[in-house]
Structures are given as structure tokens and as C-alpha cells.
């Protein structure tokens, strides 16, 4: 089976399994909703102020939702000893990694799509800059979190306190990406300043770390 | 002026703490090698 064939097959299997066991999805959707509501209670700014801080709030909320999704990335594989099978099979490890990363990307994007309208409503948000630019920012930012998150989830597999190890490893490394996401979003919302530099930074971040993950995933898989 | 001394003192406190940790590890290893030799 070809590389992308394996990737697609694994991805479809994951999506189908998640869809059947809707419990996990529903729990995470509800968690995302809770995050938005709690933030809205905690910060109640005027419309003018909210445009300045919404960028940060939204992405922190997305980050927490993403962590919840990322933590269970490899849970099923671990339960069923799938990783051992992958280690001995000739299938390229990267196919598995990409499938997992894409799966997480789709899932986190769904969570974001749910949370965004709520944020818009609660914070009376209206973008003063080019709104369409928010889409590439969201995509690039989400991929930045997801690609490293999937990778670090694999590293954390055999550590004590696995669930806390993932954010602990992910957050520091993600700081430039976070700066990029937040500042780009704020630039669009407030209409002040250009998001161009931050988008370029996000592209650079995504390229560097996607390549790094693809090059080093096999090493990590062997090491587990 | 106090800030100047505070900074220099802080520097050496931090280095000193790490060295103290190393000393403690060293004594522990000493004890363990002794018990292994028996």
C-alpha cells in the first residue's frame, strides 16, 4: 500500500471510530463550550477593549481544547498494542504520524468552529481588518499546535503523569507560534498593524516543525 | 545601591544552591558505594 494510502486508511479508520464512540467527542465539545463561558464570565470588556484581548483569549481557549484532544491521540494504539505492530511492519512510521496529526487537526478545527461563534456572540466581536485572513491564521496556528502536540504525545507515552507531560513539553516550544496566532488575530480584529509578519512566522514555524516531526518520528517510535 | 548587592548576592545564592545539591548527591553516592562494597 502506498504511503498516502496508509495515511488515508488510518485517518478514515480513526475518524470512523471516533464518530461511533461519540462519547469522547461530546465530552470535548462540552468542555470547549465551558471554556468559552468561563472566560466570558472572567473577562467582561467593552466592545473596544474586547477586540484587543479577544485574540489572546480565543487562542488560549483553543489551546486548552486542543490539549484535551491531543492527550488521547495514542490512547487507542496503546491499549491495543498497535505501536508494536507498526514497529515490525514495513509501513513507514510517518504515515501513521501524518494520519494522527491530520485527525487531530480535523478534530481541533471542529472544536474551534464550535467555539468561535460563541466567542463572537459573548464578546460582540467584529473584525475591523480583512476578515478572510483569519482563516489561514486559524489553519496555520492549529497545525502548529497539532503537529507538535501529536509528536510530544508520542514522546510522553511512557512517562509518569502522561497527561501533564504533554502540555509541559508543548507550551514552551509553542511560544513563538502562540505569539504569531494571537498577534495576527489581534491585528485583524483591531485593524491596526498588519498580520503579514505573523503569518510569515507561522508558516516558517509550521514548515520547520513539520519537517522535524517527520524526520524524527521514526526515532521516537523505535524508542518507545 | 542595595539593588546592586542584591543582584550579586542572588547570583551566588543560585550558584551556591546548585552546588549544595551536587554535594548532597555526592554524599549519597558515597554512602551507596560503601554499602555496595560490603
Amino acid at each position, binding site marked *: 500500500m502506498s504511503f498516502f494510502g496508509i495515511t488515508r486508511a488510518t485517518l478514515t479508520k480513526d475518524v470512523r471510530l471516533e464518530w461511533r464512540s461519540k462519547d469522547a467527542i461530546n465530552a470535548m465539545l462540552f468542555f470547549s463550550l465551558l471554556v468559552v463561558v468561563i472566560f466570558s464570565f472572567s473577562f467582561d470588556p467593552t466592545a473596544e477593549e474586547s477586540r484587543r484581548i479577544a485574540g489572546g483569549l480565543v487562542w488560549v481557549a483553543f489551546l486548552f481544547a486542543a490539549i484535551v484532544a491531543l492527550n488521547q491521540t495514542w490512547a487507542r494504539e496503546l491499549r491495543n498494542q498497535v505501536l508494536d505492530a507498526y514497529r515490525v511492519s514495513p509501513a513507514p512510521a510517518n504515515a501513521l504520524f501524518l494520519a494522527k496529526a491530520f485527525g487531530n487537526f480535523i478534530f481541533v478545527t471542529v472544536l474551534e468552529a464550535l467555539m468561535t461563534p460563541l466567542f463572537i456572540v459573548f464578546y460582540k466581536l467584529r473584525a475591523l481588518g480583512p476578515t478572510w485572513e483569519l482563516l489561514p491564521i486559524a489553519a496555520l496556528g492549529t497545525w502548529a499546535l497539532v503537529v507538535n502536540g501529536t509528536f510530544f504525545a508520542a514522546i510522553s507515552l511512557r512517562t509518569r503523569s502522561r497527561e501533564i507531560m504533554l502540555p509541559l513539553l508543548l507550551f514552551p*516550544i509553542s511560544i513563538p507560534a502562540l505569539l504569531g496566532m494571537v498577534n495576527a488575530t489581534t491585528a485583524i480584529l483591531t485593524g491596526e498593524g498588519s498580520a503579514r509578519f505573523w503569518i510569515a512566522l507561522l508558516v516558517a514555524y509550521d514548515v520547520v516543525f513539520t519537517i522535524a516531526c517527520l524526520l524524527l518520528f521514526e526515532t521516537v517510535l523505535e524508542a518507545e | 545601591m542595595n539593588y546592586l548587592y542584591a543582584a550579586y548576592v542572588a547570583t551566588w545564592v543560585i550558584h551556591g544552591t546548585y552546588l549544595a545539591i551536587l554535594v548532597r548527591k555526592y554524599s549519597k553516592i558515597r554512602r551507596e558505594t560503601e554499602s555496595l562494597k560490603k
Partner: protein
Amino acid sequence: MKRGFSILAIVTALLLSFALYEALIAAPTERTMGDVQRIFYYHVPSAWTAFVLFLINFVASVVFLIRRDTKADILALVTAEVGVVFCTVVLATGPIWARPVWGIWWTWDLRLTLTLVLWLIYVSYLVLRRFSASSQTPVLAAVLAIFGALDVPLVYFSIWFFRTQHPSPVIGGGGSLDPRMAHVLLINWAAFLCLAWLVCWTRYRLEVVEREVEEAQALESLLEDSR
């Protein structure tokens, strides 16, 4: 080996004393900030030393992944630990300097922020080494170190641009440096590099012994079980 270590220890002690004298007494007093500026002679060299140590960590991690040589792994661990110590010094002296000069404890100054992020990355590296229960921890740690190192230029540029949009006080004087001050700065840097070398050497030897003892203990418990 032992002689080299003693020589280094003496050189370090001498250099540190001399550097301290230079920093506190010999160096000229800065016009605007006064004597508080002398914190600079500890703050900046500590940052540079930390960066050097993390660079060594990166190289050692790459070497380890390629050669799987234990010595490289121990070097990586040691430089990460000592690097974090020096980073802590930077993060402590920075605010102590900022407070009397700017009235605030923290500023998103490029060097200070970069040091904070590095501190976070390498502390997470040390936590991984402590918490990982796998026998392949060195490999995982080396991979993480590479990710951390790749992150550094991205962190630098993101903070740099952030600062151009949100200008904040620069700790350490942005302008050109009086050559006498540069001289004292370099002396202190040399002293701290020697200190770093000395501490790393000590930690390295300690780690080697610790691993040997661990192996011996494991062997002993194996033998006991089989009786």
C-alpha cells in the same frame, strides 16, 4: 585528570575574584543609571554562558542520536542543568536591575524574554528526563533538545517583532558600549565560562558514578533474586 581539575578550579577562583573587583570597583560608573548598572557585568555574561551551554547541549544531542554514545548523552544532561542554573541567574538579576532603573519588575526586553523561554524549554527537558520511565529516555530527550534548539531562532524573531510593535525598556543599554566597560564585561564572561566548565566537569563525573552505582545495584538485586 585530577590535576587539570584543580588547575581549573584555581584559575576559576582567581578569575572570578578579579572579575568581581573589576565590576564593582575598577569599571567606570555609568552616567545615567549610576552604580546599579554594574549588575550588567553579571547579568549579560550569565546569559551568554547559558546560550553557550545550550548550544553544546544541542550538539551533544545530535551526536548522541547519530552515534548513541553515552558520553554525549551525559554531556547533554549536564549542560542542560548548568544552563538552567545560569538562566535562573539572568532571570533573577534582570528584574533586580529593572526595578530601580525603570520602576517595574519585568519588561519584555529581548534578552530577558528569550532567556525566559529558554529556561522554560530546558526545564521541560529536565522534567522529561526525570519523569520518563523508558529505558530509551536519552533518545527522547535528545529529540526534545533538537526541537528546543530549532525553536530558538523562531522565538528570537517573534519576540523581536513583538517588541518593535510594543516597545519596552531595554535592559542593558541599547547604545554603544564604552570600551572600558566592554573590557570588564569580557573578563566577567571569561570567569563565568570557567565556572560553567568547572561545574559541568563536576556534574559529569557525578553522573558517571551515579550510573555505575545504579547498574551495580541493579545487578546486585538480580543476583539476589536468583538465589
